[in-house]
């Protein structure tokens, strides 16, 4: 092979602490190197042209550039060598900036290390092979999992772009947490007034198929060609017939069913429509409370339903959908505030979660929008809000900031003072986090215009005194202990990953962090992508987020899908695993470890079993290669031989 080496000075970024001339001179001694030079800015236009000129002039078959991290410029140089007629994989990059010049000032040692890195790159390049990508057609339908505001936004944007959308929501209605909110910060507009129209849009779009009360059962396939099984849970009501008139709900004699939409501040009937604006507005039976199922008698709803929609024999149904991309928008759940025993959440009826208070404030909530104490239904006068309950507290395993609580308590305090001008509102906080547009102003308004009393400090204990609650805490600014008697205590319960996030991630083969939030492909540069091609993230499932950010990410995910679908076929990355059939012994251990289901077995004509990689599914993680005993499965462009060649140089 004829190899050319280009050692970049990067101005003085590299040349300042590395003798780039010496590195280039030494490179001429390495096997197969026929040309080596040092250049001031290799990535610049003239720098790239220099590479191309030398490839032609010197008949180079491979190129090494010793410069910065390949993360940024490897694609640049690959394109450059390609323009000069080489295959883009006949190129290697040695990082002598981030790994050398920027981390030490010892020029002699740096130069030595740079030489070794270049030598390793040359040694590897000698084993490089031209690689080619293949094309697979794209199925231009998109699956969106979770229909909170993020999923709804993504669905509408995809639908507007002309894509067929399959929307899967596990609850009976779409809307997510936003549907439960009363007003929204920082503008105090009514949540259901702004969300409602979007929900209605979903139901009216012809290219959106909505599966409510449904969950994803399994996912197979790969970008462009996923196959998804969806379990539609039995609602015992034929939704094709049900008009949502609610007759059944009014007549149902079983009144003690849980009401998750109202955060259990009220009870529901065994047959229920979660809220008036629900989409789809259909009734569903909770069989744990239905007298037909529990006692074997009743049947009131079946008798009353004017369209005969009740079907006690309904079974779960499995539907298959084929899509080319998936957006995950499964949102969040609330931290279980009863973990803080000293606050008595879940034990004292007047110590409630932030979302419960949203329901109390809401006109469609359990008290019709009048602020009342859950214990006795009376109007409270002193209301205490406690920030960071299940946020920024490593002792409960939640060291992160939930991002929305500071803002929502300011909002709730403002609304409280609006509803009950004579009330006193106190907020115990650690710091105030309000870094959004008009957010800090909003918090200030709570403090200055609405007279909400902010007390900086942690609450140590809440206990009942008479029919009121005593909140004991510290005021760290004044350095004193404070005690507030309250009628109602609202805990700003933090945000955590939605229940079942982990299992869904396993099905989708995407990663999640230690708290269950899904991992974006790059925290800054790829915040919407996952590491699984064709699977995107939107909303709070990726990390705590408010509505504007969730909506923005919903649109961003939709844009990513549209960009993916703008082509008719996708080029696969050839840096994937490949089986050498001559050495594969068919033990299929590779299949057992592949996290992406990218390997299948096949039987050759002589009856022998071999592994086979689906190039478009493989993510190039290399687990199969590490597992394969005869090393028959090799990661292209990072083969054992290539890595061994590098190691041999390093250890020589």
């Amino acid at each position: 092979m004829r190899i050319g080496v280009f050692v970049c000075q990067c101005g003085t970024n590299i040349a300042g602490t590395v003798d780039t001339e010496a590195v280039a001179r030494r490179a001429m001694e390495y096997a197969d190197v026929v040309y080596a030079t040092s250049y001031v800015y290799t990535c610049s236009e003239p720098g790239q042209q220099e590479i191309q000129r030398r490839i032609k002039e010197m008949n180079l078959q491979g190129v090494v550039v010793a410069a910065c991290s390949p993360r940024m410029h490897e694609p640049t140089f690959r394109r450059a060598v390609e323009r000069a007629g080489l295959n883009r994989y006949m190129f290697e990059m040695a990082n002598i900036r981030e790994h050398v010049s920027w981390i030490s000032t010892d020029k002699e040692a740096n130069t030595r290390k740079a030489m070794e890195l270049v030598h390793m790159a040359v040694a590897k390049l000698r084993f490089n092979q031209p690689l080619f990508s293949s094309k697979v057609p794209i199925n231009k339908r998109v699956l969106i999992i979770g229909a909170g505001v993020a999923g709804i936004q993504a669905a509408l944007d995809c639908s507007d772009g002309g894509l067929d959308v399959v929307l899967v929501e596990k609850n009976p209605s779409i809307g997510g947490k936003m549907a439960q909110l009363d007003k929204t910060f920082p503008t105090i507009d009514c949540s259901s007034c702004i969300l409602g129209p979007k929900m209605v849009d979903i139901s009216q779009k012809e290219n959106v198929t909505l599966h409510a009360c449904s969950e994803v059962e399994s996912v197979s396939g790969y970008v462009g060609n996923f196959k998804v099984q969806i379990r539609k849970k039995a609602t015992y009501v034929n939704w094709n017939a049900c008009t949502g008139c609610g007759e059944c709900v009014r007549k149902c004699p079983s009144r003690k069913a849980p009401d998750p939409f109202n955060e259990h501040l009220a009870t529901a009937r065994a047959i229920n429509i979660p809220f008036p604006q629900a989409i789809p507005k259909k009734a569903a039976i909770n069989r744990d409370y239905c007298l037909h199922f529990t006692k074997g008698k009743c049947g009131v709803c079946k008798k009353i339903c004017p369209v005969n929609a009740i079907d006690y024999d309904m079974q779960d149904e499995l539907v298959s959908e084929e899509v080319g991309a998936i957006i995950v928008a499964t949102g969040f759940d609330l931290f279980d505030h009863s973990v803080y025993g000293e606050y008595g959440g879940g034990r004292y009826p007047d110590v409630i979660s932030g979302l419960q208070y949203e329901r109390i404030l809401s006109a469609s909530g359990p008290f019709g929008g009048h602020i009342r104490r859950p214990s006795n239904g009376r109007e409270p006068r002193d209301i205490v809000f406690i920030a960071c309950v299940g946020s920024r507290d490593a002792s409960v395993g939640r060291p992160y900031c939930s991002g929305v609580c500071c803002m929502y308590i300011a909002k709730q305090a403002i609304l409280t003072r609006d509803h009950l001008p004579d009330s006193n509102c106190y907020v115990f906080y650690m710091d105030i986090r309000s870094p959004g547009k008009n957010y800090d102003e909003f918090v200030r308004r709570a403090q200055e215009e609405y007279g909400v009393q902010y007390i900086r400090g942690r609450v140590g204990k809440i206990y009942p005194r008479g029919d009121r609650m005593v909140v004991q805490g510290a005021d760290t600014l004044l350095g004193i202990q404070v005690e507030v008697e309250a009628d109602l205590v609202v805990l700003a319960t933090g945000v955590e990953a939605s229940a079942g996030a982990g299992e869904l991630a396993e099905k989708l083969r995407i990663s999640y962090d230690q708290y269950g939030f899904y991992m974006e492909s790059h925290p800054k540069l790829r915040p919407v992508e996952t590491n699984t091609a064709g699977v995107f993230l939107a909303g709070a499932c990726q990390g705590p987020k408010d509505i504007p950010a969730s909506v923005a990410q919903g649109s961003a995910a939709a844009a990513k899908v549209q960009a993916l679908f703008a082509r008719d076929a996708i080029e696969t990355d050839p840096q994937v695993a490949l089986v050498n059939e001559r050495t594969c012994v068919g033990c299929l251990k590779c299949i057992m470890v592949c996290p992406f289901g990218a390997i299948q077995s096949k039987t050759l004509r002589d009856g022998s079993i071999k592994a086979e990689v689906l190039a478009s599914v493989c993510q190039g993680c290399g687990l199969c290669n590490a597992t394969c005993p005869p090393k028959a499965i090799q990661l292209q462009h990072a083969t054992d031989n290539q890595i061994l060649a590098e190691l041999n140089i390093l250890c020589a």
Partner: protein
Amino acid sequence: MVIGWGTGYDPLHVTPVFLRGLEDVSRLIWNPLCVQNLTGYLVKGALTPPLEEGKKIGICVRGCDSRSLVALIQEKLLSRESLHIFGIPCRGTLDVRRLMNESGLSQIRSVTIQGDHLVVQNDEEAHRFPLERFLARRCLRCRHPNPVIYDELVYQPITPRTAPEDAYRDVEAMEARSLQERHLFWSSELDRCIRCYACRNACPLCICQDRCIAETREPRWLTQRVNLPEKFLYHFIHALHLAGRCTECGECERVCPMEIPVTLIKEKLNQITRDLLHYEAGLDPEALPPLLTYNPNEAGI
């Protein structure tokens, strides 16, 4: 066909026998000299013809061998349905080589077991040895003398001689030595290795056979050069390929013509597997060896 043990070229050396009909049954023997783990023949024996649909193959297994079967079944290299397993609770087999070396015997006429003694008759006289004195190392540390799967159990189950917490006492003894001592020990042991690959060939779980990277050199992890680093590398590869899979049957060590204690390396890896991943190979046909799974929530790591 049934695979079992029969008398070999002399009464001290037992050989595998392949019974094809009722008339062969008389060739079958069982005594503490039946040292071979026969399960390897099921996966790599050119001797065992491919099974006809619905037919079974019979195999005699001791406790340790049965764990090899479990491992092979877990990895889908064997199907349980194709086997008829004769399980034999085993009181321990002998280290025949040590017996020969230490007794200096030759010209052996007959061998009998009398209680807990072995009586060897050669041209001159009868020699009596306590069985216990010549038990193989693998048997001295055996925790599973009773087959863990079988269709027929040939004798009554017996009590294991080693408690689980003592299972890795040889490894612990080795680790009690200084780093330098250990280095010296392994250097001199492995330096004797002639890379005959008997250890690999005898291992029922070494399934690559002539695709083994020690010989294909594709990719080129190993070369033909005769030096200590190459020998170390070969043994590391062998051990790592068995990490979490090795059932400690000890065949690799038994067959080594250079008497290198190679099972000890695998025992160390198994000790780690036990402590870190709470897994013991070859016990539960439904379980999966931890290194053959992808589980991001792996406990212990």
